[in-house]
């Protein structure tokens, strides 16, 4: 029962043959299919990765485009506002200048008018004085004529003064 015989050698041969057969019929096909699957999965993953990268690139470019458009529109608005501001300030300064000019002109003209009036009045006063002097020199009843003369002078002078005041108020 516990004897070693040729069965040992046969078993060794059997096992070696079984090893070769198992390798050929079991391990090779199974490992082949596993390897193929691994390769397929890797390829799919790579493809997915490239697709993802492409999508990201597209997204980035779209985002850049949108950003550019936004910036451009903001720039346009800014420019327009600047231009409007400039124009407004130009118009405003022009208007101010014109107003100033009108004022100075008016002042000037008023001054001139006043001076003219003054000159006219001075001349009138001088004329009156001359006239009075002539009447005095030409004689007549002294007392009464003197009084009448004063009255006339004062009236005339008062009228003149009022006229000057009116001219200044105007």
């Amino acid at each position: 029962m516990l004897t070693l015989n040729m069965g040992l050698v046969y078993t060794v041969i059997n096992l070696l043959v079984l090893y070769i057969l198992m390798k050929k019929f079991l391990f090779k096909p199974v490992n082949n299919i596993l390897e193929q699957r691994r390769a397929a999965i890797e390829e799919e993953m790579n493809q997915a990765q490239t697709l993802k990268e492409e999508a990201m690139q597209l997204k980035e470019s779209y985002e850049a485009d949108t950003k550019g458009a936004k910036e451009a529109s903001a720039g346009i608005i800014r420019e327009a506002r600047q231009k409007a501001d400039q124009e407004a300030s130009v118009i405003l300064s022009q208007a101010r200048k014109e107003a100033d000019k009108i004022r100075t002109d008016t002042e000037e003209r008023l001054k001139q008018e006043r001076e003219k009036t003054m000159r006219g009045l001075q001349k009138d006063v001088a004329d009156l004085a001359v006239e009075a002097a002539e009447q005095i020199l030409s004689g007549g009843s002294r007392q009464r004529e003197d009084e009448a003369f004063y009255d006339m002078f004062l009236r005339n002078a008062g009228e003149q003064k009022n006229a000057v005041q009116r001219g200044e108020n105007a």
Partner: protein
Amino acid sequence: MGELANRLIEELNCETAFTIPLFGGIPIPESVAVTWVIMGLLVVLSIWLTHDLKVVPAGKKQLFVETAVCKLQDMFRDMLGEKGKQFVPYMVTVILYLGAANLIGLLGFKPPTKDLNVTAALAIMSIVLVEAAGIRAKGVKGWVKGFAQPSAVVAPLNVMEIIIRPLSLCMRLFGNVLGAFVVMELIKIMIPVVVPVPFSLYFDVFDGLIQAYVFTFLTSLFIKEAVED
């Protein structure tokens, strides 16, 4: 009891299954004939399981064969380590053979592992593989030096291990299968109905698979030890 002893001895005898009428007749032991049956079964099963594998798995059959092969390969890859991974297919073959051999008793065949010749052949192949792997990994010089590791004092023990290891592998497997067989025979003679079923599950199925695992596990361990340092 004398009858029982005779029956056991009869059961234990390795009969010659048949004789090939060549070169004056080559006797073929029963264990070798059963091994052929097992080989045939394994090959047919492999071909049937793998004949229409697809990249995208279709069906439970492919799932089963892939899972089984992957699990076994991963198990031995872990045991053998990175340097010993070329021995994975051999170890898987041996565990499949031993598993089938220990279970084939259920089909009414005599388990080949009950024949000392078979377990001895397996053990001799294991030790040849272990030493060959060691020589391949370290060179003859490194392999010889390995006997004096970790200290020269243990060198005789290490040399003895060349004999002890296969002997223990061979005897453990043979003894377990033989023991299980004897216990089962005894139970069957004592109480032939119902009771043998759970015992058979343990001794024939569980113990058989455990022994297949232990044998390959130890061989893998020795190979790993031989190729790594």
